[in-house]
């Protein structure tokens, strides 16, 4: 009996010490902690790894140039495997254990939105490099993004198909279980109809399916001018090759999820995407010296080709660092206000934010030339 009592006193004391330690203010730390969330393993790891690599490069450069507010940036990135639940858990870890002042993340739309819901409650300044679902920044005033939103890309591609490719009919094949895909598909459909195009088919599929022959047979029967595939690169590769095997000759259209598709398609199947156009946010063949310097340094550091996610990740870190510098403190509201006034000239062009904290910028239309990407032109809807 006595022993047990003693034990509970000790346990209670230990608990109190623990709470006290947890409450300790860390204002006097000599680094500025910025949290990162990215899928470093799993199906969409290609995106997460690219963003994370580029952010680390930006952090190193900023720190080598004296850091921000006279302190060094400490960037702590956790792997969330592309899963919303894992992302929220990782976010809690960053806030509670690491006491981050701002969050750069997440990478794909679903986990980013889940984290945004939590970040809003903490008033945590948050900027995603690549989360494209429109709803993400609508969660709260503290949430920003550096990439285009899904509906914007859908509208842009509809406009491009109608005005530049002269398309009169279009079909859509999209992943109904993914907000990125449905966001673009719906916006494309609406915009295409407004432009006087006919949507011959709007076919869906759910995650995990690899056979698209039934949908493609239907689409082939109506022989549309363009086939919009607002899905991620690994599904793009699957669908494009099956479409080729079915004898579909429509021009394929896509959004920025296509970036990286050449890593998923064999050279002998490259003719499947010979007649495809997708919008992205920068062009690797631009003559901008900063961009070229970044691309070659990235390749040198990681022995990988930098993709759009890397470029966006790099710009995002600079946007965030500039905002903290301008805010003059690590106070959440100060950082959020500074982010709103961003006017940053980076690798993707000049970025400002609109009233929903989405970037305002031109898009690049990319196509393919054999087994490599080919920039067609810069395009904006108006």
């Amino acid at each position, binding site marked *: 009996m006595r022993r047990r009592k003693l034990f509970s006193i000790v346990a209670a004391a230990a608990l109190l010490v623990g709470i006290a330690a947890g409450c300790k203010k860390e204002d006097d730390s000599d680094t500025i902690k910025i949290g990162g969330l990215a899928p470093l393993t799993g199906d969409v*790891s290609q995106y997460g790894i690219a963003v994370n690599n580029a952010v680390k490069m930006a952090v190193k450069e900023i720190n080598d140039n004296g850091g921000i507010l006279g302190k060094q940036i400490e960037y702590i990135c956790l792997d969330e495997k592309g899963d919303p639940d894992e992302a929220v858990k990782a976010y809690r870890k960053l806030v509670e254990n690491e006491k981050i002042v701002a969050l750069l993340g997440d990478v794909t739309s679903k986990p980013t939105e889940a984290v945004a819901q939590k970040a809003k409650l903490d008033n945590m300044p948050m900027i995603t490099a690549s989360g494209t679902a429109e709803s993400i920044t609508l969660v709260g005033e503290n949430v920003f993004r550096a990439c285009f939103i899904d509906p914007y890309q859908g509208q842009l591609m509809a406009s491009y198909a109608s005005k530049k490719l002269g398309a009169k009919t279009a079909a859509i094949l999209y992943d109904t279980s993914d907000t990125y895909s449905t966001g673009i598909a719906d916006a494309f459909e609406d915009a295409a109809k407004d432009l006087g195009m006919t949507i011959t088919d709007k076919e869906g599929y759910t995650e995990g399916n690899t056979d698209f022959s039934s949908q493609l047979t239907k689409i082939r029967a109506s022989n549309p001018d363009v086939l919009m595939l607002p899905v991620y690169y690994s599904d793009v590769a699957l669908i494009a090759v*099956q479409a080729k095997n*079915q004898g579909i000759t429509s021009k394929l259209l896509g959004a920025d999820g296509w970036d990286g598709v050449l890593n998923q398609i*064999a*050279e*002998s199947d490259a003719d499947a995407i010979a007649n495809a156009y997708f919008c992205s946010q920068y062009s690797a063949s631009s003559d901008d010296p900063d961009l070229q310097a970044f691309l070659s340094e990235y390749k040198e550091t990681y022995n990988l080709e930098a993709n759009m996610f890397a470029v966006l990740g790099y710009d995002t870190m600079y946007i965030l660092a500039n905002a903290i510098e301008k805010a003059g403190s690590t106070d959440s509201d100060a950082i959020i206000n500074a982010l709103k006034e961003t006017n940053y000239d980076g690798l993707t062009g000049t970025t400002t934010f609109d009233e929903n904290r989405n970037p305002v910028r031109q898009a690049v239309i990319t196509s393919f030339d054999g087994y490599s990407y080919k920039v067609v032109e810069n395009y904006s809807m108006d």
Partner: protein
Amino acid sequence: MEFIEQVLNGLGQGSIFALVALGYSMVYGIVQLINFAHGDIIMVGGYTAFVTFITFGMPLWLAVIISILVCAAVGLIIERVAYHRLIVHNAARISLLITALGVSIFLQNLFMLIFGAEPKHISTLFPMETIKLGNTELSSNTILNIVVSVIMMIGLQLLVNKTKIGKAMQASSEDAGAAKLMGINTNQVVAFTFMVGSALAAVGAILYCNTYSQIKPTMGNFLGLKAFVAAVLGGIGSIPGAMLGGYIIGIADSLTKAYVSSTLNDAVVFGILILMLSVKPTGIMGGDRREKV
């Protein structure tokens, strides 16, 4: 015309389900084990084809043979290492089932460690022109899948009915105890069954790679599950039943996508399973066994 094409689309993917379903069915027939690791054997076959054909650039025929041999070997190893002792000691069937799930998770994670979780692309193995019949265009892969699966089933039927080991398999399936008393080495029969089932899965893997040109460590999950539905539908333990089940599931999947809703296909496939289990649990061609799954 489109209807016929959609049926053929269904038969094309159904052929792959059927080849995987054969493995489920054969193993169940002999040891009453639902080998949930069987779907992952397809994945092993896919990666073997990838390594031999793409990484080492071997000729296609050699890549196919090596994939079949590797899968048969993996099937044998799994049987020896994971199931053998349980089977010999007549362990509860639930223990076997859980072991099978464990093997499945182990294989997936092993391949994720070796090759990474990122999908790998594999170029079309048998590049062929689209076949034109009037105004109908047929993916030649579809025809290839159907032809290969039918040949495999006929081969398997001959093996089971005409050879000594095949008859031993039938005997062991009928009554393992009695077969043993008649001098049949049932251990050997079990090992052989696993090897044949896995070799068929390798053929399925080759067709899968050729049709979808993409492999990933978790590709066996969904495929295995649908093939399992096919095996149960056709009557688990029955070879023609597994084939029939595979085709029916493939066609149901395809027609649902084409004429009902392109996102309801999984609901329909698993709905068929539930319906079948409540109406005739032994499946379309299943015998009147008294054991229950």
